[in-house]
């Protein structure tokens, strides 16, 4: 049958000359609903288990079955786990996209493909490995209806053979993926992987340079998606009321939270120490969360852009009536429905100023699962400490993709519930004024409904109110209250997580970015230094309001490139609102808004262009 069809004009002869070890990306192109997710996760995990830093990014359609999907696995001995634009190793399983996928490859890339697609005729500068998947799947999967699902596991075996991935690691990953309950399915898939491996071993002579070698860079690490990490953070923060409405890409945050809560948050008598309610829409989910926060629960919701738009009115109430609540915004591509399964930092401006009138909200920007976990915990404390809605801004890339991470650290500090007066406190004080700035930090004292004291009650309202929470339309009352809220925001500025700063000695330029832009920015800093002799400092924002460190950083540099994953430079826009003209003049914009995770080359090319190199 098939003999190896080596391209005549091959660029990289023989693997021994210049092998590319642990530094390449694999792309698997399939059709969604074909069960490829399992095969892809197993492949990624096998590489991870060999100690090699790895990342996996799923580019999937907003669809249940039948549309193209791509999964990219990047192995990087340097530990770069951002997206890499260039694909080195393609697994072409989808007839609809195969041609375009192959044409986009750089010269020298390798292609494993479904034999009937005859892709080898398209290019002469690639390494082709045709595999007759349909012929191979029959013997290992007698049950015809399962073949579609098992078929993909064959490419795991082929790729493992071609890249030197230890098959025992593939097996281990498979067992982990299927769990003890689905041992039979694991065995079936293992058979398919072995068939692929054997076919490859006896059929192909390897001509491409890519392979893996064991390292020790992943010992002790975990693999987790950001949504699961946020969910764990919420559970360990002691969340008690979760109200939500399903929306991509945030649904799996709450779904995984429900899974954890069911396992770990029931009393010995089986009763839950939490409530989860799937609301009728986002208006209700945020309303319930605010009602619960008002009554003293640690409450949260999770959503994405369209949900944020719907929540706008209630967030204004939360801000003005001063009720704690935590909102996880897993950003996706807008406007409107946009690209629901693609990533963007598209909600920064709208969330910062969400709702009508003068409103400002604190935002946390985790970049990794570790920070999703720790910042989720911090967000709940922060919301109660400052009696205001707090937003944890992640994105689809962080939320839904699998990331390598260090095991999470158990929270060291006890839960902070903020300024809540009990009946005993009221007995001593004789009374209280809900919105009076007693401590000079802009944060008043509150009581919870159900507090057994005649002086405990107050009337919460979204209309104008004075220090005693009484209705007012007086100019001085209104201004006094709004100024206190502004002062409270300034207090928050001193308590938000400080930015992470990498000062490069002698650097004239700097980067400012937040969240998942981090991976591309750091890799770009290396590319700029190594390829263009440009040194750049870097400040990664962890929160809004911005802190003095950011202002100082801009002052120290001639030009500062603000990296945005949106069209309009929203992070830059937010900075403009706070900085003086001299500093604003130093700001430059680097933007990417194509919906894929940001890659280093895009930044590097743009800096080189703007720096005139």
């Amino acid at each position, binding site marked *: 049958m098939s003999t190896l069809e080596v391209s005549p004009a091959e660029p990289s002869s023989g693997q021994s000359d210049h092998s590319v070890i642990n530094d390449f990306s694999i792309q698997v192109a399939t059709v969604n609903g074909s069960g490829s997710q399992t095969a892809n996760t197993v492949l990624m995990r096998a590489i991870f288990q060999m100690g090699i830093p790895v990342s996996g990014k799923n580019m999937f359609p907003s669809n249940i079955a039948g549309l193209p999907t791509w999964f990219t696995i990047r192995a990087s001995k340097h530990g770069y786990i951002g997206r890499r634009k260039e694909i080195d190793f393609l697994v072409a399983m989808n007839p609809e996209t195969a041609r375009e996928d192959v044409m986009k490859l750089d010269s020298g890339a390798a292609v494993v493909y479904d034999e009937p697609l005859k892709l080898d005729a398209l290019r002469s500068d690639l390494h082709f490995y045709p595999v007759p998947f349909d012929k191979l799947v029959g013997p290992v999967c007698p049950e015809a209806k399962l073949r579609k699902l098992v078929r993909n596991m064959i490419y795991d075996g082929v790729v493992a053979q071609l890249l030197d991935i230890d098959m025992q690691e593939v097996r281990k990953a498979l067992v982990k993926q299927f769990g003890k309950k689905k041992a039979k399915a694991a065995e079936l898939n293992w058979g398919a992987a072995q068939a692929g491996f054997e076919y490859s071993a006896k059929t192909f002579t390897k001509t491409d340079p890519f392979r893996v070698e064991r390292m020790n860079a992943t010992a002790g690490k975990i693999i987790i998606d950001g949504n699961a990490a946020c969910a764990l953070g919420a559970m360990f923060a002691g969340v008690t009321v979760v109200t939500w409405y399903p929306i991509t890409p945030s649904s799996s945050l709450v779904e995984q939270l429900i899974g954890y809560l069911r396992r770990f948050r029931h009393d010995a008598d089986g009763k839950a120490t939490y409530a989860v309610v799937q609301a009728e829409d986002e208006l*209700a989910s945020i309303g*319930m969360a605010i009602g619960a926060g008002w009554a003293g629960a640690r409450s949260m919701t999770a959503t994405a852009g369209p949900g944020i738009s719907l929540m706008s009115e209630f967030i204004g109430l939360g801000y003005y009536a001063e009720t704690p609540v935590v909102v996880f915004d897993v950003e996706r591509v807008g406007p409107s429905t946009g690209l629901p399964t693609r990533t963007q930092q598209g909600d920064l401006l709208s969330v910062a100023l969400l709702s009508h009138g003068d409103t400002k909200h604190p935002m946390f920007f985790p970049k990794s699962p570790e920070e999703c976990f720790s910042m989720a915990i911090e967000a709940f404390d922060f919301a109660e400490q400052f009696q205001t809605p707090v937003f944890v801004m992640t994105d689809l890339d962080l939320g839904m993709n699998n990331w390598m991470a260090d095991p999470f650290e158990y929270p060291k500090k006890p839960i902070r519930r903020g300024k809540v007066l009990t009946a005993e406190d009221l007995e001593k004080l004789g009374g209280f004024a809900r919105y009076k700035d007693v401590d000079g930090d802009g944060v008043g004292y509150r009581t*919870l409904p159900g507090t057994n004291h005649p002086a405990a009650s107050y009337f919460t309202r979204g209309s104008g109110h004075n220090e005693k929470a009484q209705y007012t339309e007086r100019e001085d009352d209104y201004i006094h209250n709004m100024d206190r809220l502004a002062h409270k925001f300034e207090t928050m500025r001193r308590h938000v997580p400080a930015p992470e700063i990498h000062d490069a000695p002698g650097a004239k330029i700097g980067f400012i970015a937040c969240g998942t832009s981090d991976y591309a920015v750091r890799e770009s800093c290396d590319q700029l230094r190594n390829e263009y002799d440009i040194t750049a400092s870097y400040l990664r924002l962890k929160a809004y309001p911005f802190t003095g460190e950011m202002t100082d950083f801009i002052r120290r540099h001639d030009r500062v490139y603000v990296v945005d994953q949106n069209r309009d430079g929203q992070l830059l826009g937010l900075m403009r609102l706070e900085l003086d003209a001299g500093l604003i003049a130093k700001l430059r914009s680097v933007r990417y808004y194509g919906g894929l995770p940001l890659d280093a080359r895009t930044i590097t090319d743009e800096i080189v262009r703007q720096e005139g190199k």
Partner: protein
Amino acid sequence: MSTSTTPSPKKVNRLGLEVLNYKGSKTTLCAGCGHNAISERIVECFYELGVEPYKVAKFSGIGCSSKSPAYFLGMSHGFNGVHGRMPAIATGAMLAKRDLLGLGVTGDGDTASIGIGQFMHLVRRNLPLIYVIENNGVYGLTKGQFSATADIGSKLKTGTLNDLPPFDCCALALKWGATFVARSFSGDKKQLQAILKAAIAHKGLSVIDVISPCVTFNDHDGSTKSYSYMKDHEEALHELDFVPFFEDIAVEIPEGEVMDVPMHDGSRLRIRKLERDYNPTNKLSALAALEEAEAKGEVLTGVLYVNTGKPTFLETLNMTEEPLATLPESRVRPPQAVLDEVMEELR
């Protein structure tokens, strides 16, 4: 407030509280507004039943009706939220503190227009909440526009006609599965008192649609929500009495004339027959009675339906009995061993 040592000349309830302790700030609504009468009934009922004010939480949306929680139960926490979304706030608060007695006050715009969706889902969930719709068929606070309960054919001062038929909030609530549905009139002191008291005793959601005339914008001839229309067309289903659990009055009642509905807390809603035989535990007859009354131009009042058996939303959630809001850290933050276990699974 306490009256324990010296005998007080003032009248007090079973908690030793005066009626004053159940009042709120002075109303800012128009003189003669039906809503003010409803506020007074609320004060009386909570006082007479001896409900601890600190255990009550008041909720409202936006509109004239929604301002009124400031005018009663001043010793209870209140939350005046956003337009049409009071049910969400009340739901969240009740999830957090299940030991509260929730009292929601809303209007016909707040419930039947902007808030119909939240109203519907509130009913579906059977949240423990007293839900009073102060229904005047008009937007008062924005000066006279139509709500979704406005009469078809009614006319604005500008001459604009309302071409659309009104929603019947009671019929809708019945259809959606409400467990306590009543209609009353702000001018019917005795009936409204009995209904409110029964609602306080009901463990699930109580939907109480109270026709509450707007003296400024909708009290004119031709309005079905005017004082004069209600005086002429109110058709009481029955005569109501409420016997609280702490008053053990065992009086022999003639068979067939009176029906006692036992409430969750041991109180009884005593229903005395008028002209018709009406069984408020039959949903179909409730819907039929509403349809018939509508066809005759009558406003049927009384307890249309009561079902004391259905579990409340909070009961379906399998929550611990203690309010979630005040659980100690030891019960809401799992120990280090749990984190270790999860981390091990992810390796």
